[in-house]
C-alpha cells in the first residue's frame, strides 16, 4: 500500500493532535496533586490563622515546609513529559513566588496582614494563570477563579477574610485539582 502526500499529511496532523491532547491530559494529571495539597494547606492555614491570629507566622512557616516537602516528593514521583524529575521546577516556582511576595511588600509597605494574605493568594493565582498558558486552559481558569475569589473576599468580607480564604480559596484549589484529574 502506498500513500499520497495528502494522506501522509492528514496522518501527521492526526497524530500530532492525539499527541498534544495526550500530553496535555498527562500534564494536568501531574499538576493536580499539587493543587490539592496546597488547597488543603490553605484550608488549614487560613483557618488556623483566623482562630489564632497571634500565631500566624508560625502556622504558615510549618505549613509551608510541609507544602514544599510534598511538592518536592510529588515532583519526583511524576516525571515530566521529557522523563525528567520536575521537583526542582516546583521548588524554584515556590521560591520565586515567596521572593516576589517579600519584595512587593517592601516596596508597598506598610502592608496589613490582610493585604499580605491577599497578595500571596494573587501571586499564586498568577502562577497558575501563567502555567495554564503553557499547560492548558484548565489551569489558567483555576488561577483566574482563585484571583476573583480572593478579590471578592478582600473587598467584601474583610472581617472574615481568613475564613473565606480557608473555605473558598482552599476549596477552589482542591476542586481545581480534582477537575484536572478528570478526562
Amino acid at each position: 500500500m502506498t500513500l499520497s502526500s495528502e494522506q501522509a499529511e492528514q496522518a501527521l496532523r492526526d497524530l500530532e493532535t492525539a499527541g498534544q491532547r495526550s500530553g496535555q491530559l498527562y500534564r494536568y494529571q501531574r499538576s493536580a496533586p499539587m493543587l490539592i495539597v496546597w488547597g488543603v494547606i490553605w484550608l488549614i492555614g487560613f483557618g488556623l490563622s483566623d482562630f489564632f491570629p497571634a500565631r500566624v507566622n508560625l502556622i504558615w512557616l510549618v505549613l509551608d515546609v510541609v507544602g514544599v516537602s510534598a511538592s518536592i516528593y510529588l515532583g519526583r514521583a511524576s516525571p515530566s513529559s521529557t522523563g525528567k524529575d520536575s521537583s526542582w521546577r516546583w521548588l524554584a516556582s515556590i521560591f520565586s513566588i515567596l521572593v516576589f511576595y517579600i519584595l512587593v511588600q517592601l516596596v508597598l509597605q506598610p502592608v496589613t496582614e490582610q493585604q499580605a494574605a491577599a497578595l500571596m493568594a494573587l501571586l499564586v493565582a498568577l502562577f497558575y494563570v501563567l502555567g495554564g498558558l503553557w499547560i492548558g486552559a484548565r489551569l489558567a481558569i483555576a488561577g483566574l477563579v482563585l484571583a476573583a475569589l480572593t478579590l471578592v473576599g478582600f473587598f467584601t468580607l474583610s472581617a472574615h477574610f481568613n475564613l473565606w480564604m480557608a473555605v473558598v480559596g482552599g476549596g477552589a484549589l482542591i476542586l481545581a485539582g480534582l477537575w484536572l484529574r478528570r478526562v
Partner: protein
Amino acid sequence: MDPLDEIIHQPVRLKIMAALKALPSRTQIEFVRLRAVVEATEGNLGAHLATLEKSGYIAIEKDFVGKKPRTRVALTPAGRRAFERYVDYLRGILDGAA
C-alpha cells in the same frame, strides 16, 4: 524507504500510538484516559489495543484499585521504534512530493 506499517496505519491505532508516544518512556496511561484522547468506543479501543499488543508495540497491564478493575497501557521500546519509523515514512512521502 521502509514499507508502510499497516499495523500502525489505521486511524484509531495511529492515535493510540501517538498518544502513548507523547508520554515519558515507560509511562502508562489508563484505558479511560486513552479512550478520551482517541475518541473511540470501549469495544473499538479494546480491539485495536489487542492488535497492537499482539504486534508487540504496546504492553497492557490489568489490576484492581480496590474492587474496581483498571487497565493501563504503555508503549514498548519496539513500539516506540516502529512509530518513529512510521513518522519518518510519512515525512519521507512529503519530502519526496516537495
